[in-house]
């Protein structure tokens, strides 16, 4: 008998509060991650990484859902996606792709235009307060537009706060923030982020374009 492949495993639901949805997938402090042996990764990182904290597949599934939140919320038919480089490039690329896929199979189509801003906010694994913009800081293309800021990780929230202040000076119509990972270190981080992929403990994570001094971006 041919059985169709099951793509997602569902469990009968318990009661879930609406407010919880905003926190995203919550990863507890004591989450041990998965053993490296259960997945593939580049050999040259063999001794440097501890475990697989969030597998690539679940990142993709979660982003697919975020794309739908974005489609539902933005009433305009056009948005400007402001991708925060370098860490945000994978999340942005995959989120925009899902928005496009949803658009092809529904009556609503959200036209996305992607712009880039490069920030440097970590030195080694410590986040800094200042907003260092590399390259052009001119965001005048945001004037009057509906903007979705796409950032890979929101830690203390200081960088995001500073970035949002900078964005506001260019007079956008509306600004929302999508953060793939939000650290459970401050209330500010959570409240700044409208679309949260995963809420994580205060651990230093790499991969999926997130780096440690430019290493590890090439993990999935």
């Amino acid at each position: 008998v041919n059985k169709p492949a099951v793509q997602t495993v569902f469990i009968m639901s318990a009661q879930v509060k609406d407010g919880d949805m905003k926190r995203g997938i919550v990863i507890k402090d004591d989450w041990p991650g998965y053993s490296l042996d259960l997945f593939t990764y580049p050999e040259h990182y063999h001794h440097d990484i501890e475990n697989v904290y969030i597998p690539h597949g679940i990142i993709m599934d979660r982003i697919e859902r975020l794309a739908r939140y974005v489609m539902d919320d933005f009433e305009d038919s056009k948005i400007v996606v402001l991708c925060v480089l370098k860490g945000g490039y994978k999340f942005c690329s995959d989120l925009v792709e899902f928005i496009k896929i949803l658009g092809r199979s529904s009556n609503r189509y959200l036209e996305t235009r992607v712009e880039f801003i490069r920030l440097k906010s970590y030195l080694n694994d410590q986040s800094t307060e200042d907003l260092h913009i590399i390259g052009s800081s001119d965001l005048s293309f945001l004037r009057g537009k509906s903007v979705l800021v796409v950032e890979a990780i929101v830690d203390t929230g200081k960088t995001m706060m500073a970035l949002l202040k900078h964005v506001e000076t260019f007079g956008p119509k509306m600004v929302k923030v999508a953060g793939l990972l939000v650290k459970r270190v401050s209330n500010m981080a959570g409240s700044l982020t409208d679309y949260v992929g995963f809420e994580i403990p205060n651990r230093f994570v790499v991969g999926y374009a997130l780096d440690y001094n430019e290493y590890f971006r090439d993990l999935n």
Partner: protein
Amino acid sequence: MASYLQIPDDEKGHDLDLFCVPRHYENDLDKVIIPHGFIMDRTERLARDIIQDMGGHHIVALCVLKGGYKFFADLLDYIKVLNHNSDKSVPLTVDFIRIKSYCNDKSTNSVKVIGGDELSNLSGKNVLIVEDIVETGRTMQALLSLLSKCNPKMIKVVPDAFLVGYALDHNEYFRDLSVSVGKSHSY
């Protein structure tokens, strides 16, 4: 130069009805010349060719914004799959630059690189430039001569010459297509 897929001048392309195209572009587009899946299959092979040529040493993948970013992300995904699944893997770092080209008095093309890390980081590395379109090649020539001053071990270019769609644009529209309606030359 590695082998490439040549699309003839008289290529008819496929009817739009045979694919999913966003409604609001239906009246503006003519045909689907290169379907998205085909782009991905070709990209997968480019990744293999790249690892073969450049995999001996640390690769810096340099993405030329804005047009190149989608192709860049997909190409790197395929390179990462190869890296994850072989005995040897090559360290891979990424960077993003914008290019402003201008003609000076002598009408030779010059380029200015905006954004990006210190170009001196490229010294001794295998540099892969991922650009969206190479039309006349003059801008690319200028970029290559600028970068070669930083003494990389090797520089290779992946031009991705789709005219419209696949993150390229026509006055900022059409970037959000996944199929393309133009010619293609490859690495």
